[in-house]
């Protein structure tokens, strides 16, 4: 199927023609249009999940190159975009895995207990200094939401990478908990502890910084 396409790109005239008829039906690929069609979308997709412009650029590039290498395995069952997005997503998860593996991972989990200062150890009450208070504002229009997102991002960046990985994977693609645990090698119990700690910290950080 894709062999056909590769044959076409050998012929400049046909390549041009295919460029015009990229929009699918039979789910073909047109790598000569990839950058124009997907690069900005993939870049934004990656930036939202990995807050690192240089790395995001690399991942977009790697995704296209990996796609080229696997062109012969594109069966047209999904759209080209879905297929490439899956490649990109796997690369993003790889980054999460690297960032949170080994030592970092151990630290992130053992830190959970050490940092447990939101509540009294004996009865589980909020410590008075950590009482959640109302946010100074609510992000109820677009402009405020944008500001809120900036602060939220900054707060997320302060957390251990394993926590961010868990949090992001759960919220970004609404992945099943079991899959996240498997991909990041955390137990189900630790998964929920991390979710809890992440939110406690994010909320506190927002209260303090979104003013």
């Amino acid at each position, binding site marked *: 199927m894709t062999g056909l396409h590769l044959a076409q790109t050998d012929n400049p005239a046909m390549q041009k023609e295919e460029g015009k008829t990229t929009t699918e039906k039979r789910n073909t690929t047109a790598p*000569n249009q990839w950058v124009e069609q997907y690069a900005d979308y993939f870049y934004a997709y990656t930036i939202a999940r990995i807050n690192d412009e240089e790395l995001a650029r690399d991942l977009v590039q790697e995704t296209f190159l990996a796609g080229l290498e696997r062109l012969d395995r594109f069966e047209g069952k999904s759209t080209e975009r879905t297929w490439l997005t899956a490649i990109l997503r796997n690369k993003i998860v790889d980054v999460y895995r690297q960032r949170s593996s080994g030592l970092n991972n151990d630290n992130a989990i053992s830190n959970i207990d050490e940092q447990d200062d939101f509540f009294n150890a004996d009865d589980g009450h909020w410590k008075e200094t950590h009482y959640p208070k109302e946010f100074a504002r609510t992000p109820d229009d677009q402009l405020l939401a944008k500001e*809120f*997102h900036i602060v*939220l*991002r900054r707060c997320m960046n302060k957390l251990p990478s394993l926590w961010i990985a868990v949090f992001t994977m759960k919220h970004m693609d609404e992945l099943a908990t079991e899959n996240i645990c498997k991909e990041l090698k955390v137990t189900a119990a630790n998964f929920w502890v991390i979710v*809890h700690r992440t939110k*406690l910290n994010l*909320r506190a950080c927002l209260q303090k910084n979104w003013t």
Partner: protein
Amino acid sequence: MNDLNKIIYNCRKATFLIEKKQLSRLTVREQLELRVHIAGCSICRTFQRQSILINGQVRNIFQSRMPDSTLPEAFKKDLQERINKELEK
């Protein structure tokens, strides 16, 4: 009753359940515990409201197209040229 008493006064457990509830399903017992706690604890009610707000905003971030983050044109041009070169191989 003792167990229920514990959760009534345990904000750590209550906030844990608030998080779990948003991403998964609570057991009947957990639902009851949380409801009882929330009814009597205004601090955790504030936490819950804010936690839901944060989750909603996080989802907005991930779903938004973020048109302000686009790649430099020069980078895109180089990248497409590289792809085209690979195609010619």
